[in-house]
């Protein structure tokens, strides 16, 4: 910086002023401005920078950063500086040391411009010169540098500077003293120049007295804020109370009196704080010590000055149990944070953990406020006050712990059982809780815990998927049953996967509030799944939503959990508005929950004033539950649950939940069932298939079946072999006329079981089984003859094994297409086949008799032809013919009576009821069960229900069939060869069969109430045959 530059400065500064401010030379303002510019230019130390000083500062910063662990920054600063210094821009720059000047400027700028501690620093530095020689050296250097520099510059200035400048200088100083603050704020560079000046004015530095006062203040502050260490060290530091009142020194007095020594006296404040801490985080501490065997114990020799050691211990020991409980709960929470994957950890338990965690948060924030209060010491805080503050929380804690002891996931119980047990435990807990606060907390906990169940239900109801990875839901999808199985409806969902032996236990493990709805739930689930598989749109979503909307006047997007919580809120506090009023009204009362919200609000407002970001972080932390999977929507649910006010009166949680859930589920069930029924009936024609099966197997389509069985009977009668294939073809041919599209689904199978081969013998034993038979000794001749006939019959049908009713073991199969086989399962079809064979046997007997035409009566024409002329021959012949004809009438009437009876009073009502059933379009559940019921009743009504042993009715039918067969033989035989004995034998046998049936039916109708059989019985009684000849 040479004097030669002075003129240049003058020129340039004038131009600058002119340019920037527009003042003309000679104006007063111009002169002032010039002075300002020049002073800034000439006396600014950036112009004469001390490169060592700057480097030292930067090195110091680098060091500071690295010491503070900000290695990255320090590294970066270093790099930047070196890069900056090495910049080619500064090489051969006409300004010397410009890089250092800039750095110095930056350094100054980086300091808070308002708080450059120039003067104090200088003072301290000068004061501590002796204590730190190295530093002083630097400082000295610095000082020297500065002074030398200043002195160096001054003479030059003085030498070269003219009068006006010196004037300006004094002016400037005066100005500065007046507006120092302004200047400091305005320009940091200026202030540093001020600092330079301050260092020059040492007499202005604080006096020693001032310094002493300062240090005393610091010391007392330090003393007030320093804790003496009472923990850890073996030697106890006694805390002496400040007061000398005896009540404040009970411990001391007790010690001196008892002579015992050794108990540590802690300040009540310390004990309170430690209590709060240990409650916040239950781990071993000075006062509460944890050992594995006993849990927490109170340090044996601790007291506070105002209590005897024993009293203090008792007081503090009360906290041990809650601490143990807390520890257990915390351990559980910790375990839940890292849920095991295999086996999957029940989400219900996780949800429960979330609930507990939320409570824990509340507790902790409450503890935090307590701690604040204690710390502030604005009011009197004592241990008993603390006890009072904590009491409701500890009550709640013990209630939670009681429930929790049940919730603990033990390896031997399934997730499902664990979940159920937990929920039941919570329900019981809520119902048995005595205090409103506890009840409320438990209810919240229950609702949290239920959330997973509810979301499963929600998913199931709305989306049709039973998502239950941890297998904890009360209903489980049985994997072995596919949706396309015909047993799907029955077996797809297992309510109770336990074994029979555990029946007792499993009964306990059913959910109380859900168990009445399980049926409806599974129906919904099954309907959903079925509809999905059938590729049918389930209900339009709007309808369900509309319902929810109407029901609860709430947001249509709401999920089940929300609905249920609202419902419960409504039930508990009336409408939601009321609930709000309630909580507002309750705020005055010092109950924990509202106090807590108050505190929360207080905290919130505090933080909002101080630091919105911090508040956001705080709220975010509190609001976000531990589980990261929870969505924002769920968070609102969480908040809703958490916002629930206390429950003033005892409630039945089971009924509350049931009433909340059931209308939703029932409604859903109704909708889905109706839809499913609609789909099954309209798209898959379940009713039509059912009708087809009835038409064929129950012979409702009389014409079609007539064709089929006449063909079958005629084949059997002429001894032709029958096989399934040809019968199938024939049947399909017949059915085609009725229902062309379904005909190929029918098929006939004929089993050639060996059991029928010796039907003749069986028939013989059958004869014995008719009780009336045994009463009448049989004519041996007759029996022989009978056997011959039977053999003849048997030989006729050697190709085909026939049953006692003269029928092959025939069954009709129906290939039921997929969704319909839920109704027409194999079991149902086999029942239909039982009925089919029954119908067939009736038809067989009737049909055989109807075919006996008078024209076929072999000798009839001969008699007609001979007229009355051949009297001798016609005598007994005519009589025998007549008897034969009458026998036919009897048998025919008998079989027709049976036939008509079953047709009119059994099959027709069944037909009508089933049709009605389908017309009313009930749910699939109802269809299946009702149909099954009707079918079973049908079988019972046909007296076929007694299982393997053939019923008396079947015996009668078999017998009548054989009688009609014998009659047919006689009919076709030359009447001249038919003896009276033969006729009488058949007549008596028929009479026996008839009476046997009458007896059987009479017994049946007198012992049981069988209205449908009374008519038949009556008729048969009226028509007991009078065939026996005198």
């Amino acid at each position, binding site marked *: 910086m040479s004097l030669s530059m002075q003129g240049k400065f003058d020129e340039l500064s004038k131009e600058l002023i002119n340019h920037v401010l527009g003042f003309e030379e000679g104006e007063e303002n111009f002169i002032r401005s010039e002075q300002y510019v020049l002073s800034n230019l000439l006396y600014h130390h950036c112009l004469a920078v001390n490169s060592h000083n700057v480097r030292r500062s930067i090195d110091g910063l680098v060091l500071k950063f690295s010491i503070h662990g900000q290695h990255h920054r320090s590294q970066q600063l270093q790099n930047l500086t070196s890069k900056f210094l090495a910049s080619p821009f500064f090489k051969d720059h006409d300004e010397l040391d410009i890089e250092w000047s800039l750095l110095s400027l930056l350094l100054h700028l980086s300091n808070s411009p308002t708080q450059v501690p120039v003067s104090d620093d200088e003072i301290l530095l000068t004061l501590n010169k002796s204590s730190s020689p190295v530093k002083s050296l630097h400082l000295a250097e610095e000082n020297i540098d500065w002074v030398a520099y200043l002195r160096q510059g001054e003479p030059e200035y003085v030498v070269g500077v003219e009068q006006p400048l010196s004037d300006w200088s004094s002016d400037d100083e005066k100005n500065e003293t007046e507006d120092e603050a302004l200047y400091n704020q305005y320009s940091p560079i200026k202030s540093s120049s001020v600092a330079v000046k301050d260092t020059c004015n040492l007499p202005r530095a604080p006096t020693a007295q001032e310094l002493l006062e300062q240090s005393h203040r610091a010391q007392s502050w330090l003393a007030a804020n320093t804790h003496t260490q009472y923990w850890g060290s073996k030697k106890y530091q006694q805390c002496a109370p400040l007061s000398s009142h005896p009540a404040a020194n009970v411990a001391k007095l007790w010690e001196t009196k008892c002579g015992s020594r050794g108990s540590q006296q802690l300040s009540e404040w310390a004990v309170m704080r430690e209590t709060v801490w240990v409650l916040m985080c239950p781990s071993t501490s000075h006062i509460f010590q944890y050992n594995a065997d006993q849990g927490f114990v109170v340090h044996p020799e601790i007291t506070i000055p105002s209590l005897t050691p024993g009293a203090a211990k008792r007081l503090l020991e009360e906290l041990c149990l809650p601490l143990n409980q807390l520890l257990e709960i915390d351990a559980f929470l910790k375990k839940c944070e890292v849920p095991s994957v295999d086996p999957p950890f029940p989400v219900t338990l996780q949800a429960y953990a979330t609930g507990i965690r939320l409570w824990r948060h509340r507790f902790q924030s409450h503890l935090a406020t307590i701690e604040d209060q204690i710390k502030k010491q604005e009011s009197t805080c004592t241990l008993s006050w603390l006890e009072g503050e904590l009491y409701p929380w500890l009550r709640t804690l013990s209630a939670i712990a009681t429930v929790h002891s049940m919730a603990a996931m033990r390896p031997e119980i399934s997730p499902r059982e664990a979940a159920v047990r937990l929920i039941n435990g919570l329900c019981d807990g809520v119902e048995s809780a005595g205090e409103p606060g506890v009840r409320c907390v438990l209810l919240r906990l229950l609702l949290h815990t239920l959330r997973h169940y509810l979301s499963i239900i929600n998913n199931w109801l709305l989306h049709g998927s039973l998502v239950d990875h941890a297998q904890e839901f009360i209903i489980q999808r049985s994997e072995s049953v596919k949706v396309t199985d015909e047993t799907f409806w029955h077996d797809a969902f297992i309510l109770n996967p336990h074994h029979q032996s555990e029946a007792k236990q499993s009964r306990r493990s059913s959910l109380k509030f859900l168990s009445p709805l399980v049926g409806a739930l599974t129906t919904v689930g099954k309907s959903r799944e079925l509809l999905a598989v059938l590729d049918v749109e389930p209900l339009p979503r709007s309808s369900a939503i509309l319902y929810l909307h109407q029901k609860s006047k709430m947001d249509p997007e709401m999920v089940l959990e929300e609905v249920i919580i609202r419902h419960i809120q409504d039930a508990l506090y009336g409408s939601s508005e009321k609930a709000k009023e309630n909580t507002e009204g309750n705020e005055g009362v010092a109950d924990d929950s509202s106090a807590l919200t108050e505190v929360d609000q207080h905290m919130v407002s505090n933080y909002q004033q101080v630091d919105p970001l911090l508040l956001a972080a705080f709220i975010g932390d509190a609001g976000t539950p531990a589980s990261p999977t929870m969505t924002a929507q769920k968070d609102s649910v969480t908040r809703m649950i958490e916002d629930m006010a206390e429950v003033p009166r005892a409630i039945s949680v089971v009924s509350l939940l049931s009433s909340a859930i059931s209308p939703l589920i029932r409604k859903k069930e109704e909708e889905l069932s109706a839809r499913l029924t609609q789909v099954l009936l309209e798209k898959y024609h379940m009713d039509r298939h059912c009708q087809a099966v009835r038409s064929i197997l129950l012979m409702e389509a009389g014409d079609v*079946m007539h064709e089929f069985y006449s063909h079958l009977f005629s084949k059997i009668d002429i001894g032709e072999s029958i096989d399934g294939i040809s019968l199938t073809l024939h049947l399909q041919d017949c059915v085609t006329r009725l229902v062309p599209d379904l005909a190929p689904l029918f098929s006939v199978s004929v089993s050639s079981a060996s059991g029928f081969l010796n039907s003749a013998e069986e028939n013989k034993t059958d004869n014995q089984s008719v009780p009336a038979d045994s009463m009448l000794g049989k004519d041996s001749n007759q029996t022989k003859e009978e056997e011959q006939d039977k053999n003849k019959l048997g030989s006729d049908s050697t190709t085909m094994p026939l049953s006692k009713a003269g029928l092959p073991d025939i069954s009709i199969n129906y290939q039921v297409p997929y969704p319909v086989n839920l109704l027409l399962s194999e079991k149902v079809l086999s029942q239909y086949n039982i009925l089919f064979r029954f119908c067939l046997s009736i038809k067989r007997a009737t049909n055989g008799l109807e075919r006996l035409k008078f*024209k076929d009566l072999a000798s009839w024409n001969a008699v007609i032809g001979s007229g009355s002329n051949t009297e001798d021959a016609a005598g007994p012949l005519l009589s025998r013919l007549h008897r034969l004809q009458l026998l036919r009438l009897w048998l025919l009437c008998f079989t027709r009576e049976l036939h008509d009876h079953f047709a009119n009073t059994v099959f027709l009502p069944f037909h009508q009821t089933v049709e009605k059933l389908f017309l009313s379009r009930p749910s699939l559940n109802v269809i299946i069960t009702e149909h099954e019921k009707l079918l079973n009743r049908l079988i019972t009504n046909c007296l076929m229900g007694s299982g393997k042993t053939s019923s008396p009715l079947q015996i009668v039918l078999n017998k009548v069939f054989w009688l009609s067969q014998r009659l047919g033989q006689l009919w076709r035989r030359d009447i001249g060869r038919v003896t009276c004995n033969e006729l009488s034998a058949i007549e008596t046998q028929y009479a026996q069969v008839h009476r046997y049936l009458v007896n059987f039916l009479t017994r049946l109708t007198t012992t049981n109430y069988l209205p449908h059989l*009374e008519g038949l019985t009556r008729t048969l009684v009226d028509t007991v045959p009078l065939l026996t000849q005198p």
Partner: protein
Amino acid sequence: MPCEIITLQLGQCGNQIGFEFWKKLCGEHGISPEGTLEDYATEGTDRKDVFFYQADDEHYIPRAVLLDLEPRVIHSIMNSPYAKLYNPENIYMSKQGGGAGNNWASGFSQGERIYEEVFDIIDREADGSDSLEGFVLCHSIAGGTGSGLGSYILDRLNDRFPKKVVQTYSVFPNQDEISDVVVQPYNSLLTLKRLTQSADCVVVLDNTALNRIATDRLHISNPTFSQINSLVSNIMSVSTATLRYPSYMNNDLIGLIAPLIPTPRLHFLMTGYTPLTTDQEVASVRKTTVLDVMRRLLQPKNMMVSTPLDRNTQHCYISILNIIQGEVDPTQVHKSLQRIRERKMAQFIPWGPASIQVALSKKSPYITTAHRVSGLMLANHTNISALFERTLHQYDKLRKREAFLEQFRKEAMFAESLDELDSSREVVQQLVDEYKAATTPDYLSWGLNHDAAEA
């Protein structure tokens, strides 16, 4: 197609009631007079193929053969809206066109002459059906064509189709107007012999009773033929309802009639129908229930057979078949039956099963009736013998005077002797005797007693 039935309409009366019958069936099955299916006929549960077959163009054509020896009635049919319904090939009119002149012998002998042509038609019709169940013959027994030709055809049917069921709807002459055809007794007697021997079942339609019912019950002062015939066609259609509307029971003709007929000759059935209405009296205030209908059916006034009260003989029912149509609660049926039995509303034969069968049948969905329930009774009652006795009585009167026999003697059959008349009388007498015998418990050993009596 199973159980097809071919209807043969003979003579003036036969064709007239046949015409009404087909009209009725068309209405019930929703078939238009042209034979096409009406648009509304969509139910599809009925069986049209028993009485109709479908031509290539899906038209329904009755399995009917129209025979007459004079063209008047058939012409009037062919001029009616139903002209296109029938298969023209199935219509046979005698080329001479003179008719039988109310002469059984003439009808019979003309039958012999036209045998080939008639049976060509019948054979063709029978061949056209899958499993022919039988024939239904509509005729009157008193005229010339229906009785004479009918008798002839009955005999021939028996020869040609021995396995088939032959049922006849035989119109018995109106005794109140006996003066119309004086030779009625001869014709009736000769026909009755064939009906007894060659028919499987005869549904007796007694003009006397029908006219009385029309006048007394329906308050029609001078009932026309078409009014009477609508009654007849009603009976015919209901009695075949179970065949046409398939159900669990009675799906063939033989099954329907077999239990009604105990012995070969006792196959004359009388009918009863309730509630009786005509078009003028549709709006009835009557409440119809099953019991009500079944009770009414047992009342003599609803029987369509004019049988005088016979105080000497305890006439009784041999068997009853009630065909109930309409909205029926099946449980009501048995209750009604029980009540009927308990109150002994019907007197039954002492030697056989008191069989009251009830067949519930569907009603045509296309025809609205004023009544919820209606019923037809087909009854085998010994009282029917009164009709035969009356015929015998009248015959004896005529025969005693040898009246009106010239016409018969003209025909070859009676040219030499009147044995045929005698044998017919004997057969009818036996029939009457058997019916009378059936009223007593001795009927069980009827053959023996009969022999004893003969001896």
